[in-house]
């Protein structure tokens, strides 16, 4: 199948998964289950990533700017960098590594054991039953995880700045708040929704279209992560180009 064929297949898959009758009474419990697995379950690793993003960003910004511009620019640099770029992209990578592979493996195994065919035989829409809750869960969870990472990273950066970098928390927060733009914050959340959608769709698509037995399941898990990471980077660039360039 060529690039065009795969694209058409991908678009059809997205259409079947999202533009179906949602049947919320049956879908909501499965959605909650997936939010628990892929949202709440990702909190520890997201918090861990946030701590190191905050530490590294504060130290690097201080290294680049100290002595050149006033100290509160450290807060400005960390704040804007985390809100616009680091928090959405890092969270996207973390969730892609954790959830896209899990989804691909789970749905791929069901495809291999013909459980999906059984669902179809029973008259259950497999897209609504398997894909919609997973994609929906990531679309809902990603903004929450991004907000958690943003706040944790800024908090950690503020602490390390006041403890080790000779930038008081007041001066740091002055830089963060003075240069804060609602567009940055909302743009980060918009990216989170987009990345959640991409990771969910890729995970489900790679699992749903798996071929070649258990090796195929492994390949599907890998390609789900790789394609999600690649699409996150491409989408991040496109968002920067169309929404953040002057």
């Amino acid at each position: 199948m060529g690039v065009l064929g795969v694209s058409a297949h991908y678009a059809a898959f997205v259409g079947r998964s999202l533009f179906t009758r949602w049947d919320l009474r049956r879908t909501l419990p499965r959605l909650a289950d997936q939010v628990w697995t892929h949202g709440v379950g990702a909190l520890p690793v997201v918090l861990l990533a946030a701590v190191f993003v905050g530490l590294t960003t504060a130290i690097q910004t201080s290294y680049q700017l100290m002595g050149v511009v006033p100290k509160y620019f450290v807060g400005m640099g960390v704040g804007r960098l985390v809100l616009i770029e680091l928090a959405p992209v890092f969270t996207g990578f973390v969730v892609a590594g954790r959830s896209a592979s899990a989804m691909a493996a789970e749905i791929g195994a069901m495809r291999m054991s013909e459980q999906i065919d059984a669902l179809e035989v029973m008259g259950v829409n497999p897209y609504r039953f398997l894909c919609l809750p997973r994609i929906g869960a990531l679309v809902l969870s990603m903004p929450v995880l991004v907000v958690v990472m943003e706040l944790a990273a800024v908090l950690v950066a503020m602490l390390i700045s006041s403890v080790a970098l000779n930038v008081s928390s007041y001066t740091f927060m002055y830089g963060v708040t003075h240069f804060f733009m609602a567009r940055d914050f909302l743009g980060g959340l918009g990216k989170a929704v987009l990345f959640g959608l991409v990771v969910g769709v890729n995970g489900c698509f790679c699992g749903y279209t798996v071929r070649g037995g258990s090796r195929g399941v492994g390949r599907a898990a890998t390609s789900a992560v790789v394609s999600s990471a690649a699409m996150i980077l491409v989408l991040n660039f496109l968002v920067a180009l169309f929404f953040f360039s002057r």
Partner: protein
Amino acid sequence: MKRTAREALTVVFLLAGVGLAILGYFWLSGHVEDRSQREVEVRFTDVTGLRVGDPVEVLGLPRGRVAGLELDGNRVLCRVRLDRAVSLTSESRFSIRSVSYLGSDRYLMVTPGTGTPVAEGTTFEGFNEALDLEETFLRLDRIVAQLDPEELRAELRNTITELVGTLDGPMQRFEGRLAGFDRSLGRASDELVQVAASLDTLAGLLCPNSTAGRLLGSDELYEELRKTNLELQVLLADIRANPKRYFKVSLF
């Protein structure tokens, strides 16, 4: 974990996310009420360039921000969030300044002063001391446009003539003093020539071949003079000890 408990926790997770997003927005945008700050009102006649959120610096340190600007009759009422630690006095001064000479960014500079402390709620008078480069150039342009080149030339010529006339008397006096100084300098120069000639003569006398030069430069003569001196001292001591040996006085 029971399914219902998980579902409840999931709902809590999502609601907490929404709450965090709202709280984070207000925290990061600086809209969360800071109890370490208080609000101060300052009246200005003009706040050109000042915006809500601009920094407030106390003696050069960032200690607050402009919280609001609103018209109050023919003046502007500026609300300032300022650290409680900053003690304002009756001599406190609020002035709008430019961040740079070329930029249009402004900040509010606060000089606390040393007067008596004021009660909370006092409204201060502010001053716009920002350098507006565009306005300065416009004013300069208007002034230049009002000038008549011919009139300016005539004015300049008159000024130069007056300046030359004014300087004429002092210049003559200065020249007279300069001539007197020149004469004194000539006399001093002649005297110096004479002194130099005398020194030259003296140096001639002291040359190694002259008598004085030999006397001054001979080690042998020095040694002999020293010995003679020592012998004279011995002779004088002997004369003092035995005067009769050398002086014999008899009447008959």
